[in-house]
């Protein structure tokens, strides 16, 4: 056993002990609990430091380090390898819960309510159980007993998936998990409020934490979207994938909750709803973890995760949290009396409520869409929903939500007709301009009109300090939606082939292909030419060693008008296509001007850990058998010289299923080959920066409301 695992076992004993201390009703036990909590937090901190230490020192005794890092991995990515796998993610979640709860204890030193802590300890215990199954400190020989003997330490790790090696991916998981971690505090406080039948006090303590959680979770989601746009190269930022959806749903719930609490503070209404949504917020976050880490949706998602060994544990823990919170809510909610809301259709509260209901409907739709494969696969074949399920339903709901935001503005400040005309006329003018000169679509026009109107109305109110947080985030939503609709509706896309040394046009730009640069991360070299200005760019394009898959990244040229998005589809190495060929058993293929016949495979199994494979070939009547061997150290190529030519034959790859091999014969000297070429898809996404600006404003508005809350707390003290 190693230090990390020993600490984990210690925590698995201390945590239930803390629960016992909490259940003991003596007054002194709370001080004892605080001390124990401090101790357990220090232990989690030591685990965290250990894992970082092992990552930074390339300690490949640990399977987690071996699978997620390598000697060549740069320092920032060695750090982010911490959360590249499930094991580290659970530990990250745990340490962030510890930090949040310690801050919670410190800022609200006077509280002596045990119930929130009982809930938090149970959550921490569930994470420790998951860490026991997915232990980041497992030795590699325990994890892979078949291939690694005890004490044997690999020279190098397999490295990180290059898709994750992006600055945005360093920050995205910790920020997202900060949202996950802080959700435990409102969850615990809401449970306590239900059990103590007092639904008035808890929101004061919980509100700042709900906002922190909404800000961090939202920022995490937005970062993920931007990363997807910048790295994945499919041209979009949101694919309605289960992984994305499952964190979007809790975020929507947190935003609804913020509005619900504002109304509760102002009118004393919505008490039950707010309690319910606080509970749902955490339960949905746990559901998100269940969906993404259990592998249950592996057949329905582009994210690659196999069915994992923690699926059952995750499922049982999820059902436990759902049932226990449902029972506590069902018992407690009858005792809570909420105030009634006025019946004035156009009041500020009412328009907020319509917006909240629509937003809730949206969350339910996304939740159902994401869960449908699981629900339906219980009775036979799974059914999943397509992207148009979400897109079609988003159109009417989006209009209703933006409309409710407009009515909210109007109900706060009754604008005069003159002022309204000032906003509506430019909005109409721009909408008409887009519809007439660029593209007409009825739903798009409605969106342009209401979004522009809302942008103008909110920006005219930005001088009102008391309303700044609300106006900023509502303006952010309008800008975001406007950007989404415009950039997807008016974009163009074109596929072009470019030969090395020459140029091809796509729309109003040109791409010049300069060649291919071999290196640590090989890339295609291009020149992006717009308005006689040429920018040179490198587009990563190589087979990554870990998964053996093609890795490529788009090039993005941003200007005020929008983004030019260049995706390298394929690069044709003329030397390679001349000198390489795939041959099926018994067939003949022309490679480097030779007729090559593939006769059969020859397999030598040396021992349990190593084997070699050769392909028996016939070239010009002579027999050659290039081979590859595999052992613990990896793959080794054994090329064969062709007598009297100075050329070599190598076995590049083997496809056992279709019984085919890929053979390479080095070309003769002084031979002239046609130039290389490459295929690109070039698209233009107008005003896409509005999407990013919108998300920034939404986050800024939420963050501002947090400072306002914090300010109020200071005044009260």
């Amino acid at each position, binding site marked *: 056993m190693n230090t990390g695992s020993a600490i984990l076992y210690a925590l698995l004993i201390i945590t239930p002990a803390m629960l016992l201390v909490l259940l003991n009703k003596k007054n002194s036990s709370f001080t004892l609990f605080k001390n124990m909590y401090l101790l357990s937090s220090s232990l989690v901190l030591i685990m965290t430091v250990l894992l970082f230490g092992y990552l930074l020192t390339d300690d490949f005794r640990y399977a987690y380090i071996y699978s997620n890092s390598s000697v060549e991995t740069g320092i920032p990515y060695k750090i982010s390898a911490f959360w590249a796998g499930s094991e580290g993610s659970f530990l990250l979640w745990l340490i962030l819960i510890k930090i949040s709860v310690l801050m919670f204890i410190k800022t609200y030193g006077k509280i002596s309510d045990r119930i929130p802590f009982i809930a938090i300890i149970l959550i921490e215990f569930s994470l420790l159980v998951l860490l026991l199954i997915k232990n980041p400190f497992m030795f590699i020989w325990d994890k892979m007993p078949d291939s690694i003997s005890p004490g044997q330490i690999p020279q190098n790790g397999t490295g990180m998936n290059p898709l994750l090696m992006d600055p945005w991916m360093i920050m995205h998981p910790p920020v997202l998990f900060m949202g996950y971690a802080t959700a435990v505090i409102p969850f615990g406080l809401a449970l306590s409020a239900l059990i103590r039948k007092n639904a008035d006090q808890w929101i004061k303590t919980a509100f700042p934490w709900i906002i922190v959680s909404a800000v961090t979770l939202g920022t995490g989601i937005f970062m993920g979207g931007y990363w997807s746009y910048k790295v994945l190269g499919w041209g979009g930022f949101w694919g309605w994938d289960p992984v994305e959806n499952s964190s979007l749903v809790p975020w929507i719930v947190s935003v609804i909750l913020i509005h619900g609490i504002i109304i509760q503070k102002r009118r004393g209404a919505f008490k039950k709803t707010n309690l319910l949504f606080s509970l749902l917020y955490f339960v949905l976050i746990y559901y998100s973890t269940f969906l993404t880490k259990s592998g249950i949706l592996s057949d329905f998602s582009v994210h690659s995760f196999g069915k994992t060994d923690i699926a059952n544990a995750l499922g049982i823990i999820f059902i436990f949290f759902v049932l226990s919170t449902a029972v506590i809510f069902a018992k407690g909610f009858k005792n809570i009396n909420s105030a009634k809301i006025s019946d004035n259709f156009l009041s500020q509260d009412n328009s907020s409520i319509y917006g909240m*209901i629509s937003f809730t409907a949206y969350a339910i739709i996304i939740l159902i869409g994401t869960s449908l494969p699981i629900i339906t696969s219980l009775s036979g074949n799974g059914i999943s929903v397509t992207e148009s*399920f979400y897109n079609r339903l988003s159109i009417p709901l989006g209009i209703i939500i933006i409309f409710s935001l407009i009515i909210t503005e109007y109900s706060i400040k009754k604008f005069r007709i003159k002022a309204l005309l000032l906003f509506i006329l430019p909005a109409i003018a721009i909408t008409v301009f887009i519809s007439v000169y660029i593209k007409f679509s009825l739903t798009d026009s409605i969106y342009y009109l209401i979004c522009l109107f809302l942008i103008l109305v909110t920006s005219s109110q930005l001088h009102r300090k008391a309303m700044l947080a609300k106006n900023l985030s509502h303006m952010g939503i309008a800008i975001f939606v406007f950007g989404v609709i415009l950039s997807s509706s008016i974009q163009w896309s074109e596929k072009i082939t470019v030969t090395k040394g020459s140029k091809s046009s796509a729309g109003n730009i040109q791409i010049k292909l300069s060649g291919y640069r071999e290196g640590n991360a090989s890339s295609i070299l291009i020149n992006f030419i717009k308005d006689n200005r040429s920018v040179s760019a490198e587009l990563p394009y190589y087979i990554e060693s870990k*998964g053996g*898959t093609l890795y490529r990244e788009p090039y993005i040229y941003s200007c005020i008008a929008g983004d030019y998005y260049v995706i390298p589809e394929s690069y044709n190495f003329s030397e390679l296509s001349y000198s390489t060929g795939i041959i099926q058993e018994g067939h003949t293929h022309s490679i480097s001007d030779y007729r090559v016949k593939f006769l059969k495979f020859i397999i030598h199994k040396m021992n349990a850990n190593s084997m070699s494979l050769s392909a028996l070939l016939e070239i010009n009547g002579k027999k050659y058998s290039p081979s590859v061997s595999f052992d613990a150290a990896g793959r080794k190529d054994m090329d064969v010289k062709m007598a009297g030519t100075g050329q070599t034959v190598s076995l590049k790859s083997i496809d056992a299923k279709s019984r085919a091999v890929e053979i390479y014969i080095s070309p003769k000297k002084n031979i002239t080959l046609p130039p290389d070429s490459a*295929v690109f898809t070039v698209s233009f996404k107008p005003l896409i920066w509005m999407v990013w600006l919108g998300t920034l404003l939404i986050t800024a508005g939420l963050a501002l409301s947090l400072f306002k809350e914090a300010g109020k707390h200071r005044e009260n003290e």
Partner: protein
Amino acid sequence: MQNKHIPVFILALVLMIISVLSFSDDIFSPYVDFGYAKSHPEKTVQIIGSTDKKTIRESKTGFQFNITDDKNNILSVSYNGIKPLNFDHADKVVVIGKFMDNKFIAGKVLVKCPSKYTEKKK
């Protein structure tokens, strides 16, 4: 909360959602086999299959390829879009779309990557 507008609003919202769902035919995609896809050309479905790399052909607007299932049935797929990352090295793909004119017209192609989370046996 005794506001009488709210139940009306919720009812209207539910009706709207139901009507959107019932007027669209491309929102659900059940997992089916090749035979079902061929015999139900009007339905949006999703199919999983192994890609046959030798059959990948690219054209100006997209690309075509064949997929095979466990029983070695062959289905030719046409996709008008950007070739997904890792497509050339994928073992299996999921295609979502409809069967038309002896071809499966995919609206979306999902690549099942050799997962980085599964340990490779050496």
